[in-house]
């Protein structure tokens, strides 16, 4: 089963076309293994992207260098998944 220890979800606020095109460099960088939960759109909607822990530093540096504003919405994805999993196990036990 895939694990996501230390992976984080960034919310990037795209304010204009210029920032949208800067972001597309990130979108097209396969080596960072990013998973876009909410893809860039042309309507200044926030972009949510899952950043693997190994790519955190590179992505932070890129966003800072490009002046792109972002926040971290999920600090450690695996912690949320562990809660969800634990609850499902508990519930299945109850069901039986």
């Amino acid at each position, binding site marked *: 089963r*895939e694990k996501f220890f230390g992976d984080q979800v960034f919310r990037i606020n795209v304010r204009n076309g210029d920032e949208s095109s800067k972001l597309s460099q990130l979108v097209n960088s396969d080596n960072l293994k990013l998973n*876009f*939960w909410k893809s860039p759109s*042309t309507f200044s909607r926030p972009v949510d992207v899952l950043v693997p822990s190994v790519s955190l530093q590179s992505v932070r540096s890129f966003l800072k260098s490009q002046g792109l504003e972002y926040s971290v919405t*999920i600090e450690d994805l695996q912690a949320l998944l562990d809660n969800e999993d634990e609850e499902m196990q508990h519930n299945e036990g*109850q069901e039986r």
Partner: protein
Amino acid sequence: SSNNFNYGAYHSLEAIYREMDSIARDFPALVSRVKIGHSFENRPMYVLKFSTAEGRRRPAIWLNAGIHSREWISQATAIWTARKIVSDYGKDPALTSILEKMDIFLLPVANPDGYVYTQTQNRLWRKTRSLNPGSACVGADPNRNWNASFAGEGASDNPCSEIYHGPHANSEVEVKSVVDFIQGHRNFKCFIDLHSYSQLLMYPYGYTIKKAPDADELDEVARRAAKALASLSGTTYQVGPTCTTVYPASGSSVDWAYDNGIKYAFTFELRDTGHYGFLLPANQIIPTAEETWLGLKTIMEHVRDNLY
């Protein structure tokens, strides 16, 4: 329910299918579980058919959920909705009158293989699990695979992309199963697809910025539905056409439905706005399902009163 199914929790595919069976068994005069096809890995695709006029092909409503497997709140909302319909029929005048005139078909897990994969291998899996010859990447986005401007803007021809449209329209057997069933029935008037997240209520088109012929009416209905939804817990939805509300998307279920004569076609992006994203805690399942029901009912009442 009779087999103590906890609607406030996430469940395996087997548990959801068992509960569908249980609902059909508990209310045989109102509900039947119908197999409409199978998935790529040969899992059955089941819908619940709610009908008070067995044997007649009444105008019908299609409620679709779980097409993107990681969006667990959509499958959970759908199975709760199934229980809500059987519990309220005969008690809730609005629902009772809807079912006196129309049938409702509910597909809680439109992407069974993907759903099982999210529970056993990768919680964030979105697509189907079909194999792509010549590529190491698996699956196609089942909501880019419908024959509505297939392979147009907002979809990718790269099998490794999350929005890969597949080798051709209806290449995903899960999509083709629904298409064949709806085209065989020929009397659907409404198609609603439940996704998450972002709290959006959208209508065609996704594949073009062009305004849909019925956009004004769909917008008015969607705003009333969003208002009804918000009345329970204050959850605010944005309303608008897919293409300019979120992003261009070709090959979507709702655009296909609309272009094939199903006028009342809507997409719900359920809770939340991004705090949890796809990992909405189970304690929000019931509040989400309850508020969504108010929106769904508003739309279904409008369809009931405006059959065409």
